[in-house]
């Protein structure tokens, strides 16, 4: 395989691998491609209150099912004096608090932080619901319900349309005698009246159904109770139905708390028990959320990544990961444009210093140091010093210049000049030395060309490196480095003319 083919192949592999990993992180792990993206994180707090009756207390609270659309970030239980345990024997996950003895009003908290995915996938198939026993129904209710079933069955095609028609009648009871009758019978179940009637009718119609309870997620809500919905089993999915409106499907921003199951709250050894919910919405950077979730699920790309490093080192990497961007700018400007710089990667180092000092202050500092340095250097050249000693002297002079600038600017109240220390001093000294030689051998014009070229490239690199999007992408998608590598390899194969050559050779072409 020729070197050229290898380069193309390698570049192709690098670029597709880099883009593939980026796409994976974006789509699967939810990393945001744009900086500053925010996601809502909901904090839901369930508060259980009851009066303890001076005997052993046992409290059991139904907890939200693991819905694939709701990602639980954290949950905790504030329950001083109570032992705590899980009960996951039944279909429903439950929290259990217990205490040997308690008297007076008691309060227990369960706090849940979750990320609620805006796009909902349908609820998974599960076992058909257990049949709820309605044997206690009195005769008149049963007859009314059965007659209603016959009435609705004629006007519906399947379970869903049956339920819709039922809701319509519920909301217009005057149009149907049986419905009016049902609504007038006293209802003493724990459910709401409409829900209870629906359950009875659906049960008589042999449509598997159960009650689902959930919360409408809305910021700042307090003392909420759970909303009851009907869940119909329409093979192979569960369909959620709002008994008030007849709308099917999960409502927007709705957290399903309990699906099926027996009760929401059981309290033994207490009375007047109640559970209320309060809801708070927090905005969190989408990235932080993705990292937290990635760490939680041990996603390899997050677990073995820069995020696993201490914050201090992460910050260092933030800068290191920008260097390739500077390198790309240098590659573009040298190979495609043909700008002369003094030292290949000097512009990147200047750009890194500019990032610390901000652009104009940095340029002013750079020009001052180099000019003063050149002047001092021209004097040193008369003193017949050995090269290494001379450059070392220049280093010291550069440091002195920096110290003076810092002190002066501090006195003048300019804090930015204090950041001069970020300039790589040894490199500066070498630059001064090389420019001084260039001045002696090729004249000041060449110094201006190369110095100006270096600064131009440095400024371009600075602009690219401080772009917020670039910063965001390099740090959060370091696999894009592979893409950069591929691109640079491809540019390395570029055999076309440089922009400056189009100017340089122009006179020659003109003659012919």
């Amino acid at each position, binding site marked *: 395989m020729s070197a050229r083919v290898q380069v193309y192949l390698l570049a192709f592999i690098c670029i597709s691998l880099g883009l593939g990993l980026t796409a994976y992180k974006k789509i699967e792990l939810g990393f945001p491609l744009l900086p500053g993206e925010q996601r809502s994180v909901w904090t839901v707090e369930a508060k259980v209150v009851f009066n303890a009756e001076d005997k052993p207390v046992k409290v059991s609270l139904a907890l939200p099912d693991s819905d694939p659309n709701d990602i639980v970030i954290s949950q905790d239980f504030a329950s001083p004096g109570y032992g705590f345990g899980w009960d996951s024997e039944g279909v429903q996950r439950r929290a259990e608090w217990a205490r040997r003895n308690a008297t007076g009003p008691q309060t227990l908290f369960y706090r849940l932080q979750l990320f609620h995915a805006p796009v909902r996938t349908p609820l998974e198939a599960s076992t058909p619901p257990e049949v709820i026993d309605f044997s206690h129904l009195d005769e008149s209710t049963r007859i009314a319900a059965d007659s209603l079933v016959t009435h609705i069955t004629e006007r519906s095609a399947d379970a869903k349309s049956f339920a819709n028609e039922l809701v319509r009648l519920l909301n217009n009871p005057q149009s149907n005698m049986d419905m009016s009758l049902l609504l007038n019978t006293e209802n003493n179940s724990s459910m709401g009246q409409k829900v209870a009637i629906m359950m009875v009718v659906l049960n008589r119609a042999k449509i598997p159904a159960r009650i689902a309870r959930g919360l409408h997620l809305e910021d700042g809500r307090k003392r909420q109770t759970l909303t009851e919905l009907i869940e119909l089993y329409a093979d192979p999915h569960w369909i959620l139905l709002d008994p008030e409106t007849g709308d099917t499907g999960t409502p927007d921003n709705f957290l399903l708390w309990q699906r099926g199951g027996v009760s929401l709250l059981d309290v033994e050894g207490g009375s007047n028990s109640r559970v209320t919910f309060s809801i708070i919405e927090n905005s969190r950077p989408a990235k932080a959320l993705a990292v937290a979730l990635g760490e939680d699920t041990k996603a390899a790309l997050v677990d073995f990544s820069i995020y696993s490093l201490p914050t201090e080192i992460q910050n260092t990497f933030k800068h290191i990961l920008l260097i390739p961007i500077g390198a790309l700018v240098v590659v573009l400007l040298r190979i495609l444009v043909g700008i002369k710089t003094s030292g290949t990667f000097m512009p990147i180092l200047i750009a890194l210093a500019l990032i610390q000092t901000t652009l104009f202050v940095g340029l002013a500092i750079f020009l001052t140091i180099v000019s003063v340095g050149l002047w001092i250097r021209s004097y040193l050249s008369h003193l017949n010093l050995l090269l*290494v000693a001379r450059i070392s002297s220049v280093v010291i002079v550069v440091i002195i210049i920096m110290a003076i600038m810092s002190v002066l600017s501090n006195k003048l109240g300019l804090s930015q000049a204090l950041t001069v220390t970020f300039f790589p001093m040894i490199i500066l000294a070498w630059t001064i030395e090389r420019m001084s*030689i260039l001045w002696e051998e090729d004249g000041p014009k060449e110094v201006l060309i190369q110095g100006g070229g270096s600064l131009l490239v440095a400024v371009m690199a600075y602009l690219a490196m401080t772009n917020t999007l670039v910063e965001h992408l390099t740090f959060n998608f370091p696999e894009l480095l592979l893409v950069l590598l591929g691109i640079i390899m491809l540019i*390395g194969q570029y*055999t*076309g003319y440089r922009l400056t*050559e*189009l100017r340089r050779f122009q006179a020659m072409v*003109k003659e*012919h």
Partner: protein
Amino acid sequence: MFFTTPAKLHAHGMLGMNRRNVSYISRYNDRRYYPLVDNKLKTKQVAEKAEASTPKLLGVVEHQYQVNTLSHILELYSEFVVKPAQGSQGKGILVITGRDGDYYLKPSGERVSEADVMRHSSNILSGLYSLGGKPDVAMVESLVHFDSVFDDFSYEGVPDIRVIVFKGFPVMAMMRVSTKASDGKANLHQGAVGVGIDLATGKALHAVQYDRPVSHHPDTGAHFADLAVPHWDRILPLAASGYEMTQLGYLGADIVLDVNQGPMILELNARPGLAVQIANGTGLLPRLQAIEALRHPDMSTDDRVAYAIEQFGNTAKQ
């Protein structure tokens, strides 16, 4: 219009810097042979081995302590050149053409002291002029006495002839003559004039200064059309033999004409620049490609020169 188009340059067969680097230098120049040309001391050794003439080596300063003894070497000569063995682009070359009491004279007439010469040597040893600042050695060479026929075409300096040699074939040549602007140096970007030379006859074809055409020497006023390089028949074989000496497929041979000893190799360059195209008013690519297309490129030096004259010489085409 300040810019031309890539298509036009391509039509003229102009070789660009990127293409030179990718398609010629890195493909035909094996890195392990680079030291032979990057170190002028080694170049001199291989040239002497190949019995190609070069300026005489008067002395070498390898260590700092030897700098002080430099004057003992220099006492014997009134004219010499001090240069770094690993310098690039003519950097760090000090030419002394005479003495004035305790002082040495540069071609411009500027006086430099012995201390200046010693400091210059010391700088060379420290690696000031070498690539990457690695320690270097200073060479003292005999001064070339250029043929007086060129006095009108050069200002205070030693003109040299740059021949581009590809796979042993001379493909293009130019003469670089110093001007007042170039301070007696034959560096084109400092203002020296590049004169394209016909491979067949050694006569001037075309001249440029600062990449723009000129017809007369800016200082002496001599007409470049009158320029003809003597001993041309000896120059091309000498340049072509650089291929055998170094094994480098793409190289630039810098040749000077001494009035007594004729053509001498001054140095060889593994990364010759592209100005030779401007000086000749024509691109290198068609010539390079013609040689790449040759079925039997293994010829003797003389055959290669003959082929080049026949193919690339201006008179042959007319």
